[in-house]
C-alpha cells in the first residue's frame, strides 16, 4: 500500500493541551458572566462574577496565543501539505458561513418586526387585531413611540445615514481595497507595500471603531436612543454592536498578521493565515453594507 504519488500524507497532530484549556477557559468565562449578570439584575451588592469572568477572559487570551502559536509554528516548520491547506480553507469558509447565519437571525428579526409585527401592532394588515393590546398605538419606522413608554421610553431621534454612517461606509470599503492591495503586494513579494497596505487597513478599521463609539455616545446622551428604547434601539444596537465586535476582532487579527509580517512570516505562495484574515475582513465589510442599507438608509 503506497500511493504517495497520488496522495500526500496528512498531518495528524500529536496530543494537544489546548482544546481542554480552551474548554475550561470558555466555561469559566461564561460562568463568570452569568454570575455577574444575575447579581446585577438582583441588585446584589457583592458579586464574584467580574473576577471569575476576568480570569476566564485571561485564560481565553492565553489559549488563543498558545493554540494559534502552535499552528503557526507547525506551518512554518513545513508540516502542512497542500491538502492540509485545503482543510483550513474549508474550515474558515464554513466558519464564515456560520457567522453569516448568526447575523441572518438578527436581520430576520428586523425584517419581521418592520414588515409584519410592527404594522400589526399598529392595527394594520392581517393581524391588525393586535392593536387591541395598546389601542391607539401608531406604528412608524423608525419607532419614535413605543406602546408602553413607561417600560420602554421611546427615543427622541435616530442616527441619520448620511452623517457618520456614510463616513464609516467609506472607511470600511476603502479598508477592503487597501487590504486587497496588500494581498497583491504579498503575492508579488513586495513586502514594503504589503506592510503599508495592511497598516492602512488596520488604521481605517480603528477609525471606523472610533466613529462608531462616537455615534453610540451621541445616541445615548443626546437622542435617548438606547438598548432599552423599544425595538428600534434593540435591533439597531444589536446589529451594529455585533458588527462592531466583529470589526474589533478583525482588526486584532489583522494586527497579528502585521506583526507576523514584520517578523518575516508568509511567502508569496504560502500565506493562508493572511488570506483567512482577509476573508474575515471582507465578510465584516459586506455585513456593514447590509447594515448601512437596512438599518440606516431604509
Amino acid at each position, binding site marked *: 500500500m503506497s500511493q504517495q504519488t497520488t496522495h500526500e500524507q*496528512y498531518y495528524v497532530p*500529536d*496530543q494537544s493541551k489546548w*482544546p481542554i484549556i480552551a*474548554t475550561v477557559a470558555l466555561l469559566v468565562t*461564561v460562568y463568570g458572566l452569568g454570575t455577574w449578570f444575575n447579581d446585577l*439584575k438582583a441588585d446584589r451588592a457583592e458579586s464574584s462574577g467580574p473576577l471569575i469572568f476576568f480570569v476566564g477572559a485571561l485564560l481565553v487570551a492565553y489559549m488563543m496565543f498558545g493554540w494559534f502559536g502552535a499552528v503557526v509554528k507547525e506551518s512554518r516548520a513545513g508540516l502542512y501539505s497542500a491538502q492540509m491547506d485545503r482543510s483550513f480553507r474549508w474550515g474558515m469558509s464554513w466558519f464564515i458561513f*456560520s457567522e453569516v447565519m448568526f447575523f441572518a437571525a438578527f436581520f430576520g428579526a428586523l425584517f419581521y418586526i418592520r414588515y409584519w409585527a410592527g404594522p400589526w401592532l399598529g392595527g394594520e394588515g392581517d393581524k391588525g387585531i393586535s392593536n387591541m393590546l395598546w389601542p391607539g398605538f401608531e406604528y412608524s419606522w423608525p419607532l419614535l413611540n413605543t406602546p408602553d413608554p413607561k417600560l*420602554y421610553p421611546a427615543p427622541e431621534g435616530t442616527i441619520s445615514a448620511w452623517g457618520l454612517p456614510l463616513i464609516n461606509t467609506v472607511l470600511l470599503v476603502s479598508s477592503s481595497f487597501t487590504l486587497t492591495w496588500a494581498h497583491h503586494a504579498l503575492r508579488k513579494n513586495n513586502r514594503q507595500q504589503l506592510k503599508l497596505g495592511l497598516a492602512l487597513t488596520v488604521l481605517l478599521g480603528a477609525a471606523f471603531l472610533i466613529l462608531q463609539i462616537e455615534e453610540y455616545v451621541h445616541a445615548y446622551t443626546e437622542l435617548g436612543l438606547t438598548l432599552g428604547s423599544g425595538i428600534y434601539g434593540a435591533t439597531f444596537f444589536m446589529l451594529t454592536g455585533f458588527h462592531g465586535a466583529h470589526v474589533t476582532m478583525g482588526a486584532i487579527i489583522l494586527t497579528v498578521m502585521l506583526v507576523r509580517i514584520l517578523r518575516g512570516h508568509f511567502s508569496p505562495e504560502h500565506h493562508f493565515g493572511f488570506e483567512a484574515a482577509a476573508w474575515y475582513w471582507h465578510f465584516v465589510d459586506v455585513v456593514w453594507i447590509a447594515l448601512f442599507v437596512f438599518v440606516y438608509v431604509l
Partner: protein
Amino acid sequence: MSAVIDDHGHAGHDHHHGPAKGLSRWLLTTNHKDIGSMYLWFSFAAFLLGGSMAMVIRAELFQPGLQIVQPEFFNQMTTMHGLIMVFGAVMPAFVGLANWMIPLMIGAPDMALPRVNNFSFWLLPAAFGLLVSTLFMEGGGPNFGWTFYAPLSTTYAPESVTFFIFAIHLMGISSIMGAINVIATILNLRAPGMTLMKMPLFVWTWLITAFLLIAVMPVLAGVVTMMLMDIHFGTSFFSAAGGGDPVLFQHVFWFFGHPEVYIMILPAFGAVSSIIPAFSRKPLFGYTSMVYATGAIAFLSFIVWSHHMFTVGIPLVGELFFMYATMLIAVPTGVKVFNWVSTMWRGSLSFEAPMLFAVAFVILFTIGGFSGLMLAIAPADFQYHDTYFVVAHFHYVLVPGAIFGIFASAYYWLPKWTGHMYDETLAKLHFWMSFVGMNLAFFPMHFVGLAGMPRRIPDYNMMFANFNMVSSVGAFMFGATQLLFLFIVIKCIRGGPAAPAKPWDGAEGLEWSVPSPAPYHTFQTPPDMSEVHEHRKGTGGELTP
C-alpha cells in the same frame, strides 16, 4: 503502512504507537476513534440521565392527581428531559458515529481538524455540567419547556436561565465546530477515487446534516442572545410593550428547530441505508435517489418552520404556505421508505440485532411520518396542537427513528470497535423489550392526545387514566431495558467471540477492510478506490475489487 509524521522528520510524534496511557489519553487526544468513543459514552450517559427524568415524568403521570413531585419540579423535568435528549443524547451519538466511521468509510487517516475535534467534544461535558447545575440553583432550573418560548423564558423565567443561555452557547460552538470538521473531512480527505457518488449514504447524510448544523446552530445562538439581552439589558425583542413580539421568538426558534429535527434523523437514515443492504445481501435500491431525497429534505426543512406555529396567529397565506410545504416533505421521505423496502424485497434476509432495529426503524418511523402529516394539516392541527398527539408524533420519529438508528449502528459496528461479537441473544432481548416498551409507552399517547389531553401537565382528567397507566408501564419497561444495553456493550468490550474484519457477510464498505478491532491508526496512506466497479456504486466499495 508508514507513519505520517516521520516523513517530515518531526521528532516527538510517533504514530506507530498506540494510545497514550492514563487520563491524558482522553483529555489531550487528537484521535478520531478516541474522540468518537468519548462522544458515544457521553451520549449514553446523557441518555440515562434524560431517561431517568422521563421516569420521573411517567411516575407522576401513572395516575391522575399529584402524587410524587410538585408541578414546578415536573416542569423542570419535562424541560430538562427534552434538552438533554436532543442536545446531549441524540446529537452527540451521531457525532460519535461520524467520528468513528466517516474516516474509516472514506479512507481518511483521521478527521480533518483533529484538535478542533477534541475541543468540540470537551465543550459538551462543560455545557451539560452548567445546564444540569441549574437544577440546584435558587429558583430551580429551566421550567419553560425544551422550546423555551418567550416570555416564559424571559420575563417569567427563574434566575438560572442566564446559565441555561450560556450552556446553549457552548453546545452551539461544539456543534458548529464538529460540523465544520465533518464537512472538511468529507470534502477534503476522501481516498483517491472515492468520488462523491461512491460514498456510503451515512457519509452523504452526514455531509448534509453538517450543512444544516452550520446553517441553524448560529440562529439558535442568535435567539438565546436576544433572550439574554431582553432579560439583562432592557431590549424588547420579545416584548410587545416595546414594539417587539413574543411570536418573533417562535419564528427564530423554529427556523432553527425544524432543521434540527432533521439533524436528528438524517444520520440515522444513512446508517440504516448501510445496514438494510447488508442483511438483505443486496445492494441498496435507488442509491442516487436516496442522495437527492436527502438533499430535498434538507432544502424543504428550511421552509416549513411555521407548522409549529399554526395556532399562534399567523396570516392565512402563511398557514397555507407552511401547510403545503410541510406536506411536500412526505414525498422525499416516501422515496426513502420505498427504497428501503425495495432493498429488502426478495433479498435473502437475516435478522441479527442491527437488522431488527433497522426494520423496526422503517416501520415505526413511517408511523411517525404519518402522524406528522396529520399535524401538517393546519385546520386539524388546531385540534391536535399542544396535546399528547404531538408528543406521540415526535416520540415515534425520535425513539424508533433516531434512537433505534443509533442502536442499529452500535450493534452493526460494535465488532469493528471492540474486536468482539456482542451477545446476539441478549441483543435480541434488548430489541424486543425496547420495541414492546416504546410502543406501549407512546402508542396510547395518540389516543389521549386526540381526546384532548394537553402536553406538559402533571395532572389530568380521570378519563385519561387507563391509557396513561399503560404508557407509564411501557416507559418503565423501555427505560429498564436500556440498562441491559449497557450490560451488553460492556460485555462485548471485555470479551466474546473474536470478530473477523468483516463480521457481516453482506456488508460492504471500506470500514470492513481494516482488522477488528480497528487499529488505533488506519488509512495513514489512503487506499486507492478508482478501481472500484460501477455496480458497487454507493457501497463504499471494497479494497480489492
